[in-house]
C-alpha cells in the first residue's frame, strides 16, 4: 500500500468483514444446522426455535448483516476520504492520490 491511510483502511475493512462473517456463520451453520436440535427444545408460538431459525430467522439475519456492513463501510469510506483530504492540504503529508 502506498500510504498509511490505505493500510489502516484495508485493516479496518478486513476486521469488519471478519466480524460480520463470524456472526453469519453462527446464525446459519451454528444455530440453523449444528445446534438446531438443542434449540428445538425452546418453543415460541407454533415454532420450534431451531426449525424457525433454519427456515426463516437466518434469512432475516442475513439481510440485517448486509445493511450493518453497508453502514460500517460508508462510515469507514468517509473517514478515509477525510484523512486523504487533510493530508493533501498539508505540505509534508502522505502521498495524495
Amino acid at each position, binding site marked *: 500500500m502506498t500510504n498509511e491511510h490505505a493500510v489502516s483502511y484495508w485493516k479496518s475493512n478486513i476486521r469488519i468483514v471478519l466480524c460480520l462473517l463470524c456472526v453469519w456463520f453462527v446464525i446459519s451453520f451454528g444455530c*440453523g444446522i449444528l445446534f438446531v436440535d438443542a434449540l428445538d427444545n425452546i418453543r415460541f408460538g407454533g415454532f420450534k426455535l431451531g426449525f424457525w431459525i433454519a427456515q426463516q430467522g437466518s434469512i432475516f439475519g442475513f439481510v440485517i448483516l448486509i445493511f450493518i*456492513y453497508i453502514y460500517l463501510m460508508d462510515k469507514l469510506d468517509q473517514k478515509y476520504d477525510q484523512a486523504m483530504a487533510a493530508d493533501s492540504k498539508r505540505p509534508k503529508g502522505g502521498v495524495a492520490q
Partner: protein
Amino acid sequence: MSVQLWTYLLVFGSFGLYIGIAIWTRAGSTKEFYIAGGGVSPIANGMATAADWMSAASFISMAGLISFLGRDGTFYLMGWTGGYVLLALLLAPYLRKFGKFTVPDFIGDRYYSKTARLIAVFCAISISLVYVIGQMNGAGIVFSRFLQVDITTGVIIGMGIVFFYAVLGGMKGITYTQVAQYCVLIFAFMVPAIFISIMMTGHFIPQIGFGAELTEAYGGGYLLDRLDGLSQELGFAVYTEGQRSTQDVFFITAALMFGTAGLPHVIIRFFTVPNVRDARKSAGYALIFIAVLYTTAPAVAAFARTNLINTVNNAEYSMMPDWFSQWETTRLIVFTDKNDDGRIQYVADPATNELEVNRDIMVLANPEIAGLPNWVVALVAAGGLAAALSTAAGLLLVISTSVAHDFLKRTFMPKITEKQELLYARIAIFLAVVVAGYVGINPPAYVAQVVAFAFGLAAASFFPAIAMGIFDKRMNKYGAISGMIVGFSFTALYIIYFRFINPAADNASNWWFGISPEGVGTLGTLANLAVAYAVSHFTPEPPQEVQDIVEYIRLPGAAPDAVAH
C-alpha cells in the same frame, strides 16, 4: 372464466408488458441513461438482480421440495440467501471497482493469462448450461400443465419461447424488463400464499401463519404440530425434524452459498451500478427482494403439504377434483390402485403407497388444491414463466458473451467485426437452448436439484479464484489455474459418477464423508483453495502491475464507468 383462458390472458399480458418496457426504454437514450447518467439505481438493480437470481428453481421447485423434505429443505433456504452475505462482503464491491464486463475478464486480467481466461470461459459456459437445463424443465412443467400436453412437448414449447426471447436481442439488456419480471413473479408467489394463509390460519402474512394455529375448519392446533402428526400417521418423517446427516446438510448449504457468490450471471449485475458504494447497497436490496419469496416459501411448503395430505389421503379416486386428473395427464401425478378399493392410499411405505406426486408441481398445484379462484391459479403460471425466462435469458447472455466476447474476440479472433460477434453469440444461444432442452426432457433430477449442481460447480471454480484474486495479493496464475482445474473437475466427476455412471451407488454409505453430490461443491471449494495456495507459494509472484491492480480495487474511490447488462 376458465383457468385455461386466464392463463393465456395473464401469460400473454405479462409477455406484452416485458416487450413493451423493452421497446419503451430503448426509445429513450439508453447510452446516456446507463453511462453518462452513471448507471442504474441500487433499488432497481436490486430488483433486477432478484429476478435474475430467482429462477424456476426458487419459484416452482423449491417450496415443493421443502414440503417433501421438511426441515432438511433448509439447505435451499439458507444456502441461496446466505450466499448474498458472501457476495456483498467479499466480492461485489471489489469487482465493481475493478470494472470489467465479464467474469472471465476479471480472471484473465487478474491472473494475466490467456489460459486462465479460457478455463474461466469453460467454467462459465458449463455452469450456465447446467443451470439453463433447470429452467427449461421448469418452463416445460408450466406449459405441460396449462396447455394439457405431455412434459416433452412442454419443454419443446419452452425452448422455442426462451430462444425467441433471448435472441430478440437485448431483452435482457434492459434492467427495467427484469424489474417488471420481479414484480410479476413476486406478486404471483405472494397472492396465493396470502390467500391460503388466511384460509388456513386467519393470518394474512404467510410468515406468521406458518407458526400459527389452524382455523376451526382445519381442525385447530398449531399448523406445524398438525403437519408433524399427519406425517407420522402416514409413516413419513416428522416434518420439523431432520433426516439427513448433519454434515451433509452442512456441506450442501455451504456449496449453495459459495456457489451463489460465484455465479457469473449474478456477478455481472454488480457492474451496472454507478459506484462501489451502490454495489454494496444493491446487494443488500437484492437480498431484501429475494427474502420476501424465501421467507414465504417454507410457509407455502407447510400449507401445501398439509393440504395435499388432507385432500388425497383415503379419498375416493372418482371424487378427486379437476386438478388431479389434469396433472395425471401430464404424468406428474400417478395413481395406481394397488388394493383395488377405489381410494387413494398415500403413505410412506412403497409397497402400499398408491400415489406418486412429482415435487415440482406442488407450487403450481397448491392454489388449485386449496380451491382458490381461477385467476390466482393462472397467475402462478405467469409467475413461474417470468422466473424461468428472466433467469434463462440472463444465463444465455453469459453463454453468448463467453463465446463471442471472451473466447473469440479476446482470445482467438481479435479482428472479428461487431456483426460477426453478434452472429456467433446467437449461434451459441441456439446450441445452448437445444442442448438444455434435450437434457430438460429427460432431467437427471428435480429442477432445484439440477440447479444445485450448477452451484456446486460455481462454488468449486469461481468463488475461490475471485476471492483469492482480491484478498491474496501473492496469488498468481499458476495457483489460480491449478486450483480451478482441480476444484471444477473433482466436483464434476463426483456428480457425474454418482448421478450418471453409477446411480445405484448414490447413497450415504458410498459418499465421501457422507457428503451427497449436491454438497460436494464445498469439498471442491476447499480443494481449490488448498491447491491454489500451495502452488502459488512454489511459483514466482505475480508481476508488479497486477499487484497494483489488487491494491487499486481494495481502496474506495472512483470506479470505472458502469456498463449496461
